[in-house]
């Protein structure tokens, strides 16, 4: 402030005093306003940040939590996806295996049927061989059914597609043996008297045709004095072979 000496004495005019007071009051007004306004503002500012600081902290914390959780979720999701893939592949494998198993069981069923381990049922043909009438002339052996007759019939039936064959209700297996033992026939150790009913499961028409073919089994057997009858059956039930026979 440059020193410019101006004396404002008490003796100056009233006008000057008044204007001076006016200016001073204006300055006072401005100053007071500014101070008060600034005070107000600062008060608000001090109050606000505390609150917002707290809330900001909380916000930050929550946000961090959220981020953490999201990351965890993402990780878990990845794991879930990989596990799901694993499960899917396992399921595929399982279904494949199950398919295989079902195939195998089917095959097993089939083979069991062939082996005579299970009860089987189906259309088929029944061939009955009975001893011929013996009119007391000639050899009696020429009038009874022998094992080779049965062999012929059984072989013919197998050859023409029989899936299962039984004699007098006893299933024949691959290891069966048939022995002629006088008037009876022993099949796998079980004796069967005449007449012998050879039942075969298969296509009845084919089996019948095979048996009846001219010069075939029927003619041969009839020539050997055996009473031969063929019957088509709608349903033949064969009991399984028991034990290890």
């Amino acid at each position, binding site marked *: 402030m440059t020193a*410019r000496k*101006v004396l404002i004495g008490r003796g100056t005019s009233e006008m000057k005093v008044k204007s001076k007071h006016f200016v001073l*009051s204006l*300055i*006072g007004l401005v100053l007071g306003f*500014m101070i008060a306004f*600034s*005070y107000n503002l600062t008060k608000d500012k001090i109050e606000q940040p505390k609150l917002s600081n707290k809330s900001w902290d909380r916000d930050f914390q929550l946000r961090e939590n959220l981020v953490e959780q999201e990351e965890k979720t993402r990780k878990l999701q990845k794991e879930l996806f990989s596990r799901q893939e694993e499960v899917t592949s396992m399921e595929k494998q399982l279904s494949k295996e199950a398919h295989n198993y079902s195939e195998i069981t089917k095959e097993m069923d089939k083979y069991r049927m062939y082996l005579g381990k299970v009860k089987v049922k189906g259309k088929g043909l029944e061939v009955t061989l009975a001893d011929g009438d013996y009119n007391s002339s000639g050899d009696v052996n020429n009038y009874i059914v022998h094992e080779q007759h049965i062999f012929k019939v059984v072989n013919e039936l197998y050859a023409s597609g029989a899936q299962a064959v039984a004699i007098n209700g006893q299933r024949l297996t691959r290891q069966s043996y048939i022995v002629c033992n006088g008037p009876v026939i022993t099949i796998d150790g079980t004796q069967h008297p005449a007449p012998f009913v050879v039942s075969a499961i298969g296509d009845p028409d084919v089996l019948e045709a095979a048996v009846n073919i001219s010069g075939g089994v029927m003619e041969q057997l009839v020539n050997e004095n055996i009473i031969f009858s063929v019957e088509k059956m709608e349903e033949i039930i064969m009991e399984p072979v028991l034990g290890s026979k």
Partner: protein
Amino acid sequence: MWLPIFGLILGVMLGLLTDIRIPDEYSNYLSIAVLAALDTLLGGMRAYLQNLYDEKVFVSGFFFNIILAASLAFLGVHLGVDLYLAAVFAFGVRLFQNIAVIRRILLSKWSKSPEKNL
């Protein structure tokens, strides 16, 4: 004599009652302006006590300093330099100097006047 004080009180009332909200970044300017105003006021008081008081100088200084301080702070904000610190420093130092001078003058006056009275 009472008119300036009445003006001051009126100003304070107005300031407290106004509910104008200004953005936070402008509150800096206001504080600087307040500082400038205080400085000028004290300067005026000192000048008055030293018999150097000039109303024109005082009034123009009052408003000009306020505007200058605010614009300095504004410039500082926009330049990225804390220029308002310069204003704070300058005004603060002058504030204390003025107060010291006023105190001395008052003290000398106070110590002189009793002698007169006696």
